[in-house]
């Protein structure tokens, strides 16, 4: 029963990681870029959300309604101002640019919000629980998982069915051929980053409801997102989702074994996948 409980908690934790991993999988799939400031953006949005909630007395869902458009705008701006200048075959410029951005963002947040941990008051939902089969699960983690599944499903559907999704896939397969058929790659890239960061708007609300956030937390979120994407297999939205579940379950079981071992267990499973199945669980060779 104890291990079954750990499994359920792991899946629920995976729901949180999936919300970070989706955007990263999308950006890498389309532009072959890793945004090192991915985690710092979650923290930035969380802190903005917390400040909004405390100054206007908004509930978590009002904050979400405000935060998601802000995140989309932020993503679009990031692409236009920074990433469009560094996208290309050489991975170095994009890594360095987003790495510098990450240092700047982290320290800017430290300056504005101080190093204290904060969280978003949820008006009671963070402590409610529901009973499923013999175990109690928190209402909030279940909501996180439902949102993560919905976002993954929506993103997958958008990539497969819509005109924009086709343009995105064409640009990721061969940017020059896509340009020849009339696709404006820069515009597609800007929309992809806007969506990737937009998803972080949801993640930010849930992260700050579930636990606390502090300016220095971004690096860990980036690593979890990255591990989920690699475990799942690059270039697949559902792969990133399943990878997040695997990472969540590994960490939850690790925490049961020893509290100091939880995060390490996640890293070790990641390294194990890298050793035995480097293309990821769902990756194509």
């Amino acid at each position, binding site marked *: 029963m104890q291990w079954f409980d750990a499994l359920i908690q792991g899946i629920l934790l995976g729901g949180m990681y999936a919300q970070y991993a989706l955007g990263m999988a999308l950006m*890498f799939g389309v532009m*072959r*870029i*890793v945004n*090192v400031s991915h985690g710092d953006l979650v923290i930035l949005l969380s802190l903005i959300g917390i400040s909004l909630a405390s100054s206007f007395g908004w509930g978590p869902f009002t904050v979400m309604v405000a935060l998601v458009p802000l995140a989309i705008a932020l993503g679009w701006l990031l692409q236009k101002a*920074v990433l469009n*200048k*560094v996208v290309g075959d050489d*991975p*170095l*410029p*994009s*890594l*360095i*640019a987003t*790495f*510098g*951005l*990450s*240092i*700047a*963002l*982290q*320290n*800017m947040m*430290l*300056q504005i919000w101080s190093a204290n941990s904060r969280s978003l008051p949820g008006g009671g939902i963070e402590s409610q629980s529901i009973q499923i089969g013999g175990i109690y699960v928190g209402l909030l983690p279940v909501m996180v998982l439902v949102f993560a599944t919905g976002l993954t499903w929506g993103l997958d559907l958008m990539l497969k069915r819509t005109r924009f999704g086709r343009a995105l896939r064409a640009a990721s397969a061969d940017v020059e051929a896509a340009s020849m058929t009339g696709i404006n790659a820069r515009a597609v890239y800007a929309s992809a980053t806007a969506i990737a960061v937009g998803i972080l708007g949801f993640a930010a609300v849930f992260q700050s409801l579930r636990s606390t956030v502090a300016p220095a937390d971004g*690096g860990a979120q*980036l*690593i979890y997102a*990255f*591990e989920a994407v*690699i475990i799942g297999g*690059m270039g697949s939205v559902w792969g990133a989702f399943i990878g997040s579940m695997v990472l969540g379950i590994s960490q939850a079981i690790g925490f049961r074994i*020893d509290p*100091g*071992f939880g*995060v*390490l267990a996640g*890293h*070790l499973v*990641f*390294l194990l996948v*890298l*050793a035995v199945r*480097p293309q990821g669980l769902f990756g194509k060779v």
Partner: protein
Amino acid sequence: MTSVPLSPVSHAPALPQVMVRRQTASGRIAMVLFLLAVVALAAMPWWAKTGTIRMVLELCCYIAVAQMWNMLAGYAGLVSVGQQAFMGAAGYALFVLAQTFGVNPFLAIFIALLVPAFLAVPCYMLLHRLDGPYFAIGTWVVAEVFRLVASNMGFLNAGAGMSLNVMKEYSLLERNIAMSLLCALMILLTIGGSYWFLRSRYGLALIAMRDNPVAAASQGVNVPRLRFMIYIAAAVGCGLAGAVYSMAQLRINPPSAFDPMWANVAIFIVMVGGIASIEGVLIGSLIYFIADRWFGQYGASYFVVLGVMTVFVALYARGGIWGAVSKRWDVHWFPIRRHLIYKTEERP
């Protein structure tokens, strides 16, 4: 029956008489200055106070780590943000050898370098499977794994860390002499060693690989092997810097041994100074060192400026300071190019 003698020499057009020039006047001057600097470093106990030696030691560690990062990112195309893994590993190895097993610390520092060398092999085996930008984040995960393992190992005194009490057996002068010699050795190995490597035939292969890995492979460069060699060498170089730094600190614990700050510092130094050049590393290290002394008191806002500068360099000035200088003047301090000079009588 007349047979035409096959003489390929007579059919091939005569090769122009050329000379390969590899050293320049500025290079010779810089070489002398470099050797003088190494001697000055070694002789520090006779001209510097203990505080100065500590500061110079810090600067030497910046130079060493930045140059190792430069070899990885600037030449081998391996962007790492996790070299602190090997710095911490060598630091811990030194502390365990000297403190737990009672090995002479100045001998232990060299034995300790075997640890990053051995650890780098499996790390590279795993990480090289990751594509370009993912390699970088992968190195970060490895550094996190090292830190978490060290925090969980009772043998390393877990999160509390260790102290190097055996250093009490040596007088201040003895320690200063050792630190100065280690500084000189570190610079000689990382800067001098890189220069020697880049001028060797491996260097030629490395530069070909940096410009275009596929084309280099087609010319017979063993790209995977060269990358592997650089990765191991960089792990050992960073290990030396880490061991020397923690020996000077006399204390080690997981957050300081595996401090991601080193990645920030190395990236800032190399990008601002000028990637893929030894000159850039020296310029960048001096800038960072002076900036840290002057503006370090401003804490977070100082790092915001460093971060924004790194973004700016990546967007608009990828060559950094040395890139801008070398575009205008051909005064390389560490020339690694081979210039073909026509002999005077053949000059067209």
